[in-house]
């Protein structure tokens, strides 16, 4: 079937068999391997991408359902010049170990902060509940998301120092 969609700002028109998932399309047709294939049934969140502003599991969406939609993957987050503030906070807080869960976690965090720029710790936990991590224990991820939120609200810089205003 024919599909048109926008991925990280670029438009694509391609033809795939109907049983292709959005995850398969992104990884195999477009070479965006940031979204990972973990459980393949919606449990782990490693395949999380943002579709029309909302985080979803790309393993549970058929490519046909993504027709006409706008997708953001982890590849679209940083620019050549700099990392996204959430990525930078993850780096500074040493929030990831093996990194397999990272693209999904970071996109869930981005979707959360886009909607709620000043979340409580509990709201961050809730926003990341669909992303399993086998390495870290989550604490440093939650710290990083809360820190990135402060950076994005211009209340602090990346070192954690208060922004003079």
């Amino acid at each position, binding site marked *: 079937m024919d599909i048109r969609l926008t991925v990280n700002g670029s438009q694509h028109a391609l033809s795939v068999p109907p*049983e292709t998932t959005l995850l398969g399309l992104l990884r195999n047709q477009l070479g965006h391997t940031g979204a990972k294939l973990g459980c393949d049934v919606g449990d782990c969140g490693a395949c999380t991408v943002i579709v029309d502003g909302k985080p979803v599991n790309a393993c549970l969406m058929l490519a*046909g359902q993504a027709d006409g939609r706008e997708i953001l993957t982890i590849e679209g987050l940083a620019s050549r010049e700099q990392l996204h503030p959430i990525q930078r906070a993850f780096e500074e807080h040493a929030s990831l170990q093996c990194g397999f869960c990272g693209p999904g976690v970071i996109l869930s965090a981005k979707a959360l902060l886009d909607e709620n720029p000043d979340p409580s710790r509990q709201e961050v936990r809730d926003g990341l509940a669909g992303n399993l991590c086998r390495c870290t224990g989550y604490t440093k991820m939650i710290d990083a998301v809360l820190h990135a939120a402060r950076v994005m609200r211009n209340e602090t810089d990346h070192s954690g120092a208060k922004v003079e205003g």
Partner: protein
Amino acid sequence: MRAFNYVAAGDIQQAVRLLAEHGSEAKILAGGTDLLADLKSSPHPPRMVIDISRTQGLGGIEVTDKGLRIGALVTHTEIMKSSVIQEHFPALVDAAHTIGAVQTRNLGTLGGNLVTAVPSMDSGPTLMALDAWVVLAGNSGNRQMPLTEFFKGPRRTALKPDELLMEIVIPAENIGKPVNFLKSGLRKGQALALVNAAGSLWLDAKGRIREPRIALGAVAPTVIRAPNAEKCLAGQVPTPEIMVEAGKIAAEECKPITDFRASATYRKEIVEVLVKRVLMHAHAQALKK
């Protein structure tokens, strides 16, 4: 995944026509959070997938003269964000919030949750405690029935092969009825219910309980009402003792199974506690009105 044909239905008529044409070879796709896992693992996947995720006429939440109408395609996230639902039925927001995690709630629909008809579904109890009915669309027109008649068994509903679930309606007389939902799972996030429960009640002019409803999930082949527990409450002064008693009766009338998540005995104990608590919360809401 095995190969199948795919059509995105533009409107309800086209969807039901396709269902009639392809019969048992066809499957409806809404949010896909249940269906895609099935398609990946089933030895006999359908030949035709009819995608209704963008079909006209199946979305939206609104108050009509019949009651509160929720389109089958409304997602769990949309329920949580709906100001109408927040105002009249915070319990529906609580129930939606316990479903999976953000990603699942963004795709998963209310209709898909009800049609999948697993006993542990989290959207069923609150709706049943509010006497909700469903509207089904078929080639020979629409029909409606109470949710209690829609569920036929584990993963079985009253839908005929050429029908789809169009909308869910909470009757007008129950808009604003005090209701509460609680779920007990092994973890907070991403966990199916060991038991879930909803309770609703009105208070009459003398402060006695009127039209009590108790609905339970994961303790029978479908979501069920607890009629004996309801009877023990009707017309009574709402004391803590009567709510404890209702919990005990509800635990007696449900028929949970033992599985790897919990034993039947444990589930009955949880029923007792949850029923007492949902009644206490619903009562507290009623006093505020």
